[in-house]
Structures are given as structure tokens and as C-alpha cells.
């Protein structure tokens, strides 16, 4: 059975009229890296909160359908148990700093302290996680003194160190420069290959196409389309629905109309574009 199993999930936040998620059906296998794309307001963050247990346990509101991760039904679990399996990092790095710690090293250890990891195990785990995301040099800095991109790496590391089975990421690279983004995507890919399941919301199409196994396109709280990155990200349906696409895709689409792109499939990445445009 699939590792993540969403069955007909419909959810409405308290005090709102329209549901944020409508009849979502989604199955993800263990070790799969799935990217979620969609315009703002499509329900991407709500989907993340649902997988991470905060919908409905934290936000309340009305939910129907079933949410299952690692064989456990969300409605039959509690948030404090759920977060041991599912890690969540979101967009705003500043608000993810606990405020209880004075150095990056302590900040990353926070989750391990809370979940009762013995002290002699804690230090090597923090060191290993920091090495993975390449922030070992920040260990003694105050988390508040870092740039947005560095803070995002700290937020990601703080979750990775807890070794969740499912990693949920809501635009984790929004404040990183291109080089930082590429590195972080590489780290996440590596985690997935090590068996961690990853669900990630992202706008950066080129990187999704390079690293993700599958793409789910959301619109107005519903799944518009899902499939292989290249299929979904080059689909006409996305353009019609106001999704962002990579410049390679949009330019090749125009080129195809003018007979300058000969291939059947449109490109998403630089390599695919070079391949197709080469004389």
C-alpha cells in the first residue's frame, strides 16, 4: 500500500465559506519525491499542513475523507505523535526559529531535546545534519544574525535532524540564491534516495524537472493534473490555468508555432532545450 494515502479529502478552515481542499485523492510511495505546483491560493500550503497533521489538529475546521501516512490514520492520531513521523518546514524562515536558542547548533538540537533523544546521540546527529546541508560553519552564530537563505537552511536542517519518514516542504528555497537552491534540491534528492518520502511545494520549475519524480498541479483546492515532471510542466492545461512555466517551455511553445521547434515534447530544463534547439 502507498505510504501516503489521501482519500477524498475536503477541508474548510474555520470561519471561511469555500473549502481550501476539495476531493483530494493522492497516493505517494515510500522514497518518492513529489513536487506540488500551483498559483497562490490553490491550496498548496493547506495540503502541506494536512500531511503534517496541523490540519485539522491545529487549525480545527471541518475535514472529511481520510488522511493516512505510514499506515496511520491522521484522525486517530494526535499531533505530538504525528510529528515524530512527519517533518514540516515552510516558507518564512524567520518565524521558524524557535527563539529559545542562542546558537544554530542549539537551534538544530531543539527538536531532539523535545523528543527525548539521549545527549550522547544528539551531538553527532546535529553535526551530521549540518554537514549534509553545508552549514557547519554557522554552528556558533545566532540564528537571528543569518540571512534569509541561511535561515531557510537552518529550518530545513532542524527538521532533517529529526529523521522523519515523510518530509513536507513548503517553498523551502524561496530566499535562496540559484546556487543555494541547486544545492538544497540535491540534498533533498539524496534524502529521497535514502528512503525518505518528500512532498515539496515549489515555483522553480527547472529544478523540479531536474530532481522530482512526480508533479501534482493544484488549482482552487483540487488536483488539476498529475504525472511525470516533463508531462505536467509542459502541458497546455497549466498555461490556460495561469500557472508559471519555465522560460524554456514557453519559448519552445512559441517556437513550435513558428515551426522552429521540431520535437513532439516541449522542454522544461536547459539540457532538454539545448537538445531540442540544436541544429
Amino acid at each position, binding site marked *: 500500500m502507498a505510504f501516503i494515502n489521501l482519500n477524498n479529502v475536503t477541508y474548510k478552515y474555520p470561519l471561511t465559506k469555500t473549502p481550501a481542499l476539495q476531493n483530494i485523492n493522492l497516493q505517494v510511495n515510500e522514497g518518492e519525491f513529489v513536487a506540488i505546483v500551483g498559483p497562490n491560493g490553490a491550496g498548496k500550503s493547506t495540503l502541506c*499542513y494536512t500531511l*503534517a497533521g*496541523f490540519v485539522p489538529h*491545529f487549525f480545527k475546521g471541518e475535514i472529511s475523507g481520510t488522511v493516512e501516512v505510514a499506515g496511520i490514520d491522521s484522525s486517530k492520531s494526535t*499531533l*505530538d505523535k504525528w*510529528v*515524530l513521523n512527519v*517533518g*514540516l*518546514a*515552510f516558507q*518564512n524562515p*524567520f*518565524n*521558524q*526559529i*524557535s*527563539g*529559545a*536558542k*542562542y546558537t544554530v*547548533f*542549539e537551534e538544530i*538540537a*531543539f*527538536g*531532539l*531535546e*523535545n*523528543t*527525548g*533523544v*539521549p*545527549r550522547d546521540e*544528539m*551531538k553527532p546527529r546535529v553535526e551530521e545534519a549540518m554537514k549534509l546541508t553545508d552549514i557547519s560553519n554557522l554552528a556558533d*552564530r*545566532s540564528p*537571528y*544574525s543569518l540571512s534569509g537563505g541561511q535561515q531557510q537552511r537552518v*529550518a530545513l536542517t*532542524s*527538521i532533517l535532524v*529529526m529523521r522523519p519518514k515523510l518530509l513536507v516542504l513548503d517553498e523551502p528555497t524561496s530566499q535562496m540564491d540559484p546556487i543555494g537552491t541547486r544545492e538544497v534540491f540535491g540534498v533533498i534528492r539524496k534524502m529521497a534516495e535514502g528512503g525518505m518520502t518528500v512532498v515539496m511545494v515549489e515555483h522553480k520549475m527547472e529544478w523540479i524537472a531536474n530532481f522530482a519524480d512526480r508533479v501534482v498541479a493544484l488549482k482552487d483546492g483540487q488536483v488539476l493534473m498529475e504525472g511525470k515532471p516533463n508531462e505536467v510542466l509542459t502541458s497546455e492545461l497549466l498555461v490556460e490555468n495561469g500557472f508559471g512555466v519555465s522560460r524554456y517551455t514557453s519559448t519552445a511553445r512559441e517556437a513550435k508555432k513558428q515551426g522552429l521547434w521540431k520535437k513532439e515534447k516541449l522542454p522544461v530544463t536547459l539540457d532538454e532545450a539545448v537538445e531540442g534547439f540544436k541544429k
Partner: protein
Amino acid sequence: MHERLSFFVKRDSALHPLNPLTKIVLALGIILVSIFSPWYWTSHVLLLVVIVPLVFIGKVATEYFTSALRLILPAAGFIFFMQAFFQPIGQTVIFNFWFLDITQESLLFAFRIATRITVMISAFTLFLLTTHPSELMSDLTRRGLPPQFAYVIISTLQILPQMQAKAQTIIAAQRSRGLDTESTFFKRIGSVVPLVSPLVFGSLVEVEERAIAIEARGFTSKKAKTSLYEISDRSSDKFIRWGLVIFVIISIVLKLWLS
């Protein structure tokens, strides 16, 4: 950016490795003895014979005397003048100013109060300079303080400077829209809403997101929490704590007995 968010300064001294609780008890002990002791000279003795040497033992002399200049002396000075002018005691007028008489008694009283204030603030400054806030909270949590309570205290200490930075940005944003925050009093009053409401709204969002972030990291986990640092609590710590308790009791007994 704010790299240093607490008073704490990391030094290799005899005071730093003491248990945080011992250091709180030390600060409170000094304060209580100075309040309860029946002799007016106790505070002066505490300041010169206990606090100042401890400042040197703790290797925080520079930081202590800087904060003494900035904070302790102005506070003590203010108290001194208020007491000297407005304490209606004694007959021996030394000089008068307008309708206020300064008497020998009020002057002595003011001096005593000011010294006591100096002792109090100094004892706490010494404590803050030599105690890492995270260690303090871990230790108190281990001793049964609810972790939520510890979290609120320590995160407030850290987040206040961030709020201040944010307030600066909001002021900058509104001034860019032509808001006059500098000229007349009425203009300043009028500028309160544009400055305060973004701050309040921003804080609400922040509190919710921060709650999610710490929850995601197992903050409410029912498992027994562990701590990154080992916080020592040696027998010498217990000895010092009990010694201080005895000193405080002696001062209270002396006070009751002699009055």
C-alpha cells in the same frame, strides 16, 4: 544584526560553571541579606567585599562596570535625590532649596536606600552576566518548571530585539509614504496607528507560525525531554545554596531580635 541577544558573556571563570540555580540563589541571597540585615552598613560591605570581588572572580569586570555606569549609577542616583529631597524626616537641616529641606537624616537614609538598590541591581547583573539563559531554563525545567513557561520567558527575551528591528522597518516604510514622525506633537500622535497596527498584525501571524514550527519539532511531545548540555550540579553547589539560605535566615532572625 543583533549577534548578542543576552547579557551573558562566555568566560572561563570559577563562577561560570556553577549550577544556574546556585547563581540565582546567590543573587537572591545577597539581595535578601541586604534587605533584612539590621545594620545599615551591611549593603556597603556586601557591595565592596562580596559583589566586587565576585565580579573579578567571574572575569566580567569590564561588562559589569560598563553596565554600572549606564544603568546602576543613574538608577541609584535618581533614587538618592528623590529620597534626599522628599523624605520628611529629621530636624538637622543642612541646606534648603525652595520649599525643600535637606536634613542630615534624610541624606543618610537616601544614601542607604541608594546603596541597597545598587546591591540589588548589581547582584542581578552579575547573575545575568555569568549565566547562559538556555542553561538556566534547561535546569529549571529539569527541576519541574513547566517547559511552556520556560519557553515563553526565554523566547520573549530573544524576540523583543527582533520586534524592535521590525518596528524600525515599519517606521521606515511609513516615512517613505510621507508620514511625518518627527515634527509636531500632534503629528506624532497621528502616526501611532500606521506604526502600531502592522506591528500587531505581524506579531499575530508570527505567533501562529512559530507555534506550528515548534510543534513540528516535537515541543509538546510527551516523552521526557533531554538537554544538549550537561548542567553540572556538584555538592559544592548544594553547599553554597544552603550556606546562603542560612545567611538569609540569620539576617531575618537578627532583624527580628534587634528591633
